Each structure stands twice: as C-alpha cells, then as structure tokens.
C-alpha cells in the first residue's frame, strides 16, 4: 500500500462548550479521493479544523491517527510536518508578511535546518506553480491574503498545496466563490497532485467541482456525523434531489448540529 493513512474514529468535538461533532468515523488512504457533502452547519469545517488543530475546537473523545501516530498529540506545525494540509474555507489575512516570504518559510519548515531551499530554486518553483494556476506574479509580493479576492485566496491555498506536496490534503470549500475558469484551474492543480501517494478529502457543496475531480468515495454529513457514504454516483443524486431523501431515510428532521436534541 502506498502513501499515508488518516484514520478518524468516533470523533467528538466541541466549540465553546457546544458539541458539534458527535462521532465521526472516516478513513482516507493514499491515492484515495473522498468528498464530503452536506447542508450548511452540519460540521464539515469543524471536522477539517479538528484534524488540523484549530485552537477553538476541542476534541472531547475519539481519535485521529496518521499512519498509526496520534495526531491529537501533535502541535499544529507538527501535524503539517507529518503530512497533513488543510486548505481553509476562510484563510487568514496577515498584513506585513508577503506571500512569497510565507511560502518560503513554509517550505523551509518542512526541511532540515541548514538544508533550506536555495532562493533561486524556490523562486523557480513558485513561478512555475503560479503559472500553472494562472496566478498574477504580483501576488508573491503582496501581503498574505490581505485584500485578496475570494478567488485569489482559494488559488493561493492551492498554490501552497502544490508547493508543500502533503500526504493528505483536506480542501474545505476550495470551489466556493470561484468563477468557472478559476474552478477549472484549481481542479487542474489538484489533479496534478493525484497519484497513489496522495490522499485527499474534498469538502464541497457542488457537483461542478466533482465533475472535474472525480471522487472515489462520497460522504454526507448531518448533525455532526457521517450519515451516508457511497461512490461518485451519490453526487449526482444529491445534485438532482437534494438532501431530503437522506433525511427521510434516516428519520432526520433538522440536519444542523444545534437542532437535533
């Protein structure tokens, strides 16, 4: 078996005292592309944030393992160095720090001290990734995400993904706010990474992204759990029929987290 394996077992997560995830189980292996869909407010971003270690999210029980290593014991930077990457739904804006300096620090963080990437090599790699994603070169010298349009932020997340080449990538609504051309470019970037060593979890509301990136597995989240899993065919049915049939099947009335007491 190639690549890494991310195992999420019976994960419970609270935010500010309120339980959001109520027992999520999911396993992503190298080479597999998983999609998570689900109505607003059902815990998709919470899952992504808990995996990466967002300070506001508290894991109350369950486990997350990467190749058997306890991810929950790791600091955020250690998770990244272990091979996890999260393209965030709402990336932070950091004025004063250029995109290029940030990228270089990120790459060097993954390398040994004393083995920093040579500047010219870095610039070449960054330029070619920016070309591939059709990003305006000026972005490298602009402050990180500051004043970026929605689409620019998303492309910047994929730029980081391409340059850091993680084992497991989690993409939280990477398609939201993208026009159709940008969507194609972003999908092209993600597909470039597709190989037997790279596992990916794509959180999305829309079939249109999955038309370009065919998932191997599709999961539906409601009420802080994965309530249905299937193959790529599930996407079409959701697009055509919405979520009601799943709710009926499972006897769910209100799908969001707060309303299921």
């Amino acid at each position, binding site marked *: 078996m190639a690549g890494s394996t991310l195992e999420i077992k019976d994960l419970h997560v609270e935010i500010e005292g309120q339980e959001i995830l109520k027992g999520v189980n999911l396993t992503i292996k190298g080479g597999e592309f998983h999609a998570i869909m689900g109505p607003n407010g059902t815990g998709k971003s919470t899952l992504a944030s808990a995996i990466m270690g967002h300070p506001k999210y508290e894991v109350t029980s369950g486990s997350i393992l990467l190749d058997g290593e306890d991810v929950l014991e790791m600091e955020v*930077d250690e998770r990244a160095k272990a091979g996890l*990457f999260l393209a965030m739904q709402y990336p*932070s804006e*950091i004025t004063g720090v250029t995109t290029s300096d940030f990228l270089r620090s990120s790459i060097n963080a993954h390398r040994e001290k004393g083995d920093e990437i040579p500047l010219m090599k870095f610039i070449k790699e960054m330029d070619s990734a920016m070309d591939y994603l059709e990003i305006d070169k000026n972005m490298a010298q602009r402050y990180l995400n500051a004043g970026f349009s929605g689409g620019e932020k998303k492309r910047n997340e994929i730029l980081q993904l391409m340059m850091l080449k993680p084992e497991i990538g989690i993409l939280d609504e990477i398609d939201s706010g993208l026009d159709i051309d940008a969507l194609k470019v972003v999908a092209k970037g993600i597909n470039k990474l597709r190989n037997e060593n790279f596992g990916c979890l794509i959180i999305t509301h829309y079939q249109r992204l999955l038309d370009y990136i065919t998932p191997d597995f599709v999961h539906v989240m409601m009420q802080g759990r994965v309530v249905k899993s299937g193959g790529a065919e599930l996407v079409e049915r959701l697009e055509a029929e919405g979520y009601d049939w799943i709710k009926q099947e499972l006897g769910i009335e209100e799908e969001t987290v707060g309303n299921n007491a």
Partner: protein
Amino acid sequence: MSIEAKQPYEKEYVEKFSAEHNEPEWMTGFRKQALESASTLEMPKPDKTNISKWNFTKFNLEAETQGLDSLKDLPDDIKVFVDTEKDDKNLVILRNQINAYETLSTELVDKGVIFTDMFTALKQYPELVQKYYMKDAVSFDEHRLTAMHAALMNGGVFVYVPKNVVVEEPLQAIFWQENPEFALFNHVIVVAEENSSLTYVENYISFNKDEETVANLVTEVIAHDNASISFGSVDNFAHGTTVYMNRRGIAYRDAKIEWALGQMNDGNTVSENVTHLIGDNSFSYAKAVSVGRGDQSQNFTAKIINYGKQSNGLILQHGVMKDSASAIFNGIGKIEHGGTKANAEQESRVLMLSKDARGDANPILLIDEDDVTAGHAASVGRVDPVQLYYLMSRGISQQEAERLIIHGFLAPVVNAIPIAAVKEQLTEVIERKVY
C-alpha cells in the same frame, strides 16, 4: 567633569564651552538665557507617564574622543548602518558629539547643499543657523528639558538644501554615544527651501547597559513651499540612557514631511514627534514603530496640527510590548479653525507579547473647524491565535510564526525607511529586541 547636583550647569561652564567652539555671540547669549530659565521652568509632563524619578540630572559632559580615520575603524555594531559598498556617500558621524567623519558628494556641494556638524555650521553659516535654531519649531522655554538642551547643546548636524535643488541620494547622520556616561544634547536642523527635496536618515546608538546618562535631543525640520522631506531614523540607545526626544516639523504651502521613526531605545524614553501643517495643501505622514522590553517605560506622542486649508495629516504608530515594559502611544490630530477641507487620521496599534507588559493607545482628535474629514483607529491586543494557527498549519513553528506576525505588524514603518542598510538594521534591532 561629572555633574550630579541640581544646579550644576554653571554659567562659567557654558561660557567656556561656547568660547572653545568659537560660537557666534548670539549663541553664547542664547545659551546663557536658556540656562537661567532652566532653573525655574517645570519639567515636561507627558500624558500618563510619570517621569519624576527618571534620571535627567546624572550625566557626564566630557569624554575623551578620537576621530575616525576610516569607516573600517567603526565597531561592527555601527558599521552595519553604513552602506560601505557605496562610494558616493553623504554621511556625517559624530562620536561623542565630535565630528569624526564627514563626506558630501561634490555634486551636492556644488549645488549649495550644506550637510555638516552644528559647530561647523555655526562658524560657516551663523546667520542661516540663527534663522532656524529654536525659532519656529521648538522654543527653548517650553519646559526645563528644552531649556537645558538649549544651554548645553553639545553637537548635532545642520542640513540645508537650497531652492529648487533635488537631492536624490539620502543624507545619513550617525550619532554615536561611545562613552557610557557621556550625555548627548544633540541638535538637528533640516531645512528644505522652496521646491527642493531630500531624504535624511539618522541613527542614534549607544551600548551603556548599566552606566547611566541622558540624551536630550531636539530636531527641527522645516519644509518651505512645495518642498519635500523624507525623514527616517533608528533610535537605539542602550538601557542606561534616559532619552528625551523632540522631533518637530513645519510644512509650508504644498510642502511634504514624511517621518519613518524606528524607536528602539532600551531605556526610559519620552519621544514626541509634532508636525505643524502651516501651509495650504501641506502634507505629513508620521509613521513610528517601537519595541518595549525589560522594565523600560516609554511615552510616545505623534501629533499633527492642521492650520492650512486642505492640509492632510496621517499618523501611524505600531508598538510591540514584551516583558514588563510599558508604553503610552498618543496619536493626536488637531485641526485649527480655518483649516477647511483638512484631513486628520490616526492609527495606533499595540501588540502585547507578555501579560506583564503594558500598552496604551490613545488616539485623540481635536477639531475646531466644521468642513473637515477625520478618523482614528486604535487597538491593543495579543498575537491573533487564528493567524498563528494558519501559519503553523503550513509547518511553521510557533516561534517562527510569531516572528513573522510581529515583523508584519511593524512592516509599514520598516518598509518606509529610505536607506536599505538602515532598514535591514532596523529589522535586526527588532529581531534582537523581540527575542
């Protein structure tokens, strides 16, 4: 001579000092007048900072000093501020207030630009100096410290750019308090005549961690009609030096004064930067950064007063506070009656790195005119945990992530410093102070 008592500045000392420097008569008289006032005037009272226990009286006025044969002889800590690669430098270095090194490109000399130490200027251009020396910008009798400054002024530089002359290359002054107890009463005058422009950058530096002394500094910056002055600085006095810094600007019609101040002293500091926008359509952007560490207490005031119509005054103060340091940041915009269509904006932000540090941001708007625009923003906060998370999620360690955020926070001012070598040094000083 060591000075400790309350009334130590004997008239004889001042007379002798003035005579030794062959000063013009007006200067000697001015010093004596100021000396007299010093004993009766009150100390300044910076808002919210109590300076009554600070050392303003214990210092030494004499120091053995050598010149400087070559820039190579500078200690490394100072050499780094100088772009040694470049031949055509415009540089003055005062070592314990003695002019140790001076160069000005022949091109600028030919154009009538003056850039020399204050004593030389007093000798060669006494009338010109007299025209500006503590006249329109700073008065000697504002309080005891300005009076002491006027009485004991022991060096400085005089910068003069004639009408219509555009100085492309920056002028740089380095004020090196080499003797650990030697006091600096440094006086800087920068004058840009009509339609002229220049960039001036100064560095103050000392290494006296424990030995105590005083730096009492006055800077007067005058931009005549349609002149443009870009003023950068890195203040880097060591812990033992108590600093009173008064930088004042006057901008006449269509004139522009831009400040980029790196306030990196390690000792107690009062620093005020006031700009008077006298002329219509005059402009000033006052940017300042500072890092407070250890037990130091600091008080920063950035103030712009709009008199002229359509004058525009912008203030940006960013401070980082760590350990048990404390600092007050006053950002004051004042629009006088008659300053129609003037604009005043202030932004004061403080980043707290430790729970024992104290930082206060006070943006103040005082407006005596109806038809104006104004705005202010202030914040005191810690490093944003979500920003940290974002950076760390790419593998960057917490310490490195904090470092990036702090440099980013200070970048608007650091990037405005006009000399590359000085900008780099400021970055390094920040690095040293923060870690």
